[in-house]
């Protein structure tokens, strides 16, 4: 079944890669396409806001400027960038191997649960709480990524369905364990106590949410980039993603690559769980704390074309829009969910292989020719 579904994709990507492979021109075209997508999406946003809002200019200005207005909001933005980067990386990793695994949400919850168990145990009171919490979260997430991977490799179980089901299971598992075990008896809330201080990420910039998570995100970008582009594992992974049959003929154990990619992405998802609950944003485990955040990584990965180094750049822009939308939601009459409409438009346009309108193309091509001379 998956082979039939994958067939048109392979054909499409092969057709797309038939052009001469000059690296800079490809990068230029990708960036140009992303820019056009963002511009179209922003125009669509303006139109929507114009129809929805009683004071459209206020709303739009809030969307565009509010995140940069205060230290606190800048902190929210940077914190969002760190988290979006990690989820974007997790999706990029599996997408590069052409596995449409959507398990980051579930990995995030099991990672958060593991971190919470460590932080709320006696170990959490010691200096070990922080590293052990992160480690356990990554292991838990890795296992949660490994399971659908091995099911796909051994049995051919469709990874889209299995990872999504595992997401729902993890959410309910978190609800259950928080209610039954982790919440102090008699509180009636669905939130644990605040984690002890040694288990929390240290703050990098005082009075903001910017914490150790940012360092983790930067490290994750570098490690994923190195693994994908400077190791034989990464080369094999990209080969498998590009043309699984060719990779198989070349003697690459594509099953091993697939499972390891999904496990590594799972560890990133687990790390993200730890970044949420051990970070300054929460510092505790609350049910449903994630609210669909993990799936934003799909957009990040698609717009970044699964390139690890492009992921933080896209995250920077998208986090800004997200925060702007939140503040617009609070301060004006436009709901924050407008951002999902924008996101959908961006994904659709970035994934499309549209040509520029003829007049624009002539202009752009003429410019480029002038620049090279």
């Amino acid at each position: 079944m998956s082979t039939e579904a994958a067939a048109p994709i392979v054909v499409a990507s092969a057709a797309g890669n038939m052009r001469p492979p000059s690296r800079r021109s490809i990068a230029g075209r990708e960036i140009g396409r992303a820019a056009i997508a963002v511009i179209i999406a922003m125009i669509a946003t303006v139109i929507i806001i114009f129809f929805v809002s009683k004071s459209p200019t206020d709303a739009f200005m809030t969307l565009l400027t509010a995140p940069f207005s205060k230290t606190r909001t800048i902190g929210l933005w940077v914190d969002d960038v760190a988290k979006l980067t990690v989820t974007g990386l997790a999706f990029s990793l599996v997408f590069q191997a052409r596995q449409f695994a959507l398990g980051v949400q579930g990995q995030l919850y099991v990672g958060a649960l593991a971190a919470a168990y460590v932080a709320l145990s006696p170990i959490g009171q010691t200096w070990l709480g922080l590293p052990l919490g992160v480690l356990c979260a990554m292991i838990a997430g890795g296992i949660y990524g490994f399971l659908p991977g091995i099911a796909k490799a051994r049995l051919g179980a469709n990874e889209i369905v299995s990872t999504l089901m595992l997401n729902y299971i993890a959410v309910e598992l978190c609800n259950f364990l928080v209610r039954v075990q982790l919440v102090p008896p008699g509180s009636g809330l669905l939130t644990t106590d605040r984690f002890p201080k040694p288990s929390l990420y240290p703050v990098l910039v005082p009075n903001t949410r910017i914490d150790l998570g940012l360092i983790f995100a930067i490290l994750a970008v570098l490690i994923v980039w190195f693994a994908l582009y400077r190791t034989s594992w990464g080369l094999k992974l990209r080969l498998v993603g590009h043309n699984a049959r060719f990779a198989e003929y070349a003697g690459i154990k594509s099953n091993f690559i697939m499972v390891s990619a999904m496990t590594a992405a799972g560890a990133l998802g687990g790390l993200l769980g730890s970044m949420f609950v051990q970070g300054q944003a929460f510092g505790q485990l609350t049910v449903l704390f994630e609210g669909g955040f993990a799936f934003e990584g799909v957009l990040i990965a698609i717009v970044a074309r699964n390139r690890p180094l492009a992921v933080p750049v896209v995250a920077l822009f998208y986090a800004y829009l997200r925060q702007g939308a939140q503040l617009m939601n609070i301060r004006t009459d436009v709901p924050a969910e407008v951002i999902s409409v924008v996101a959908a438009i961006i994904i659709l346009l970035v994934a499309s292989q549209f040509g520029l309108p003829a007049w624009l193309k002539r202009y752009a091509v003429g410019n480029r020719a002038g620049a090279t001379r």
Partner: protein
Amino acid sequence: MNELLVTIFSAAFLATVIRTSTPLLLATLGGLIADLSGALNVALDGIMLIGCLAAVIVSHYTPWYVGVLAGLGAGAIVGAIMAFFHLRMKADIIIVGFAIGALATGGTVFALSIATGGDKGTSINLPSGAIPAVDLSFLNAIPGIGPVLTGIFSGHSFLSWVAALLVFAIWYFLYRTPWGLWLRAVGEYPNAPEAAGIPINKVRAWSLVVSAALAGLGGAQLAMFNFIGFTANMTAGRGFIALGAVLLGARHPVGVLFAAVLFGAFDGLTTVLPGLFSWIPPELIRMIPFVVTILALVLFSIRAQRALALRGSR
């Protein structure tokens, strides 16, 4: 345990299963059409959600059947958008599906908020219409088995009957009409029908439109019969379970019917169990459909692999 068996084999539980299976079956049939045409429609869940919202909003102002048609139509429009981006703009169908999913989860909340003037998450201030149950109590007149027949056949949603009919209609279409053959050929090996002069992109586009329209119809059933009204993310993964049901049903209309009823039965169980066994944590009960889907997927994959191995060794 006895109580559970009594409940499961009661007419009331049968009605529950039919009720919970119907939206699932409609979405699964949609997934089947797309799948057979060679496109994995991962947007089923999002389309259902959009269908839910369209049905709720439209049925507030119009008779119920217009609301149902609105769910269907909203789905068809989304399907046309998907077809445009997939076929004309050459976007990967799975990524298009992701985009529609993102659009649906946030966009429905956004649209509801606009339609109701600020309500987020529920349509409590926008009472919607309901799909009537088909009353067949005249079957009582049949001597002897009359009451039993009434118990089994009466009181189901109008759309449950439509869905049952659609199983047959889609089977007939796929296996007894030339267009069905075209569709399957396009999904199986597109080069052959293309060489035979069949407009394969047209076939693909219509498959996506019909697939999405069926999912939208499933959404209408969900929001106008199973629940009355819209809540954010009310599909709760049904569209993705439907994807699993397509695989479990061996990509055949009748197999898909059984798969949808199986998943529907476990979905129904989640509504019955809390009343019977209050000691089972509700979170674990809510996990049941997802665990069952994974188990079914794994078992089916094992079976499929064995079949493949047999074919290979021959």
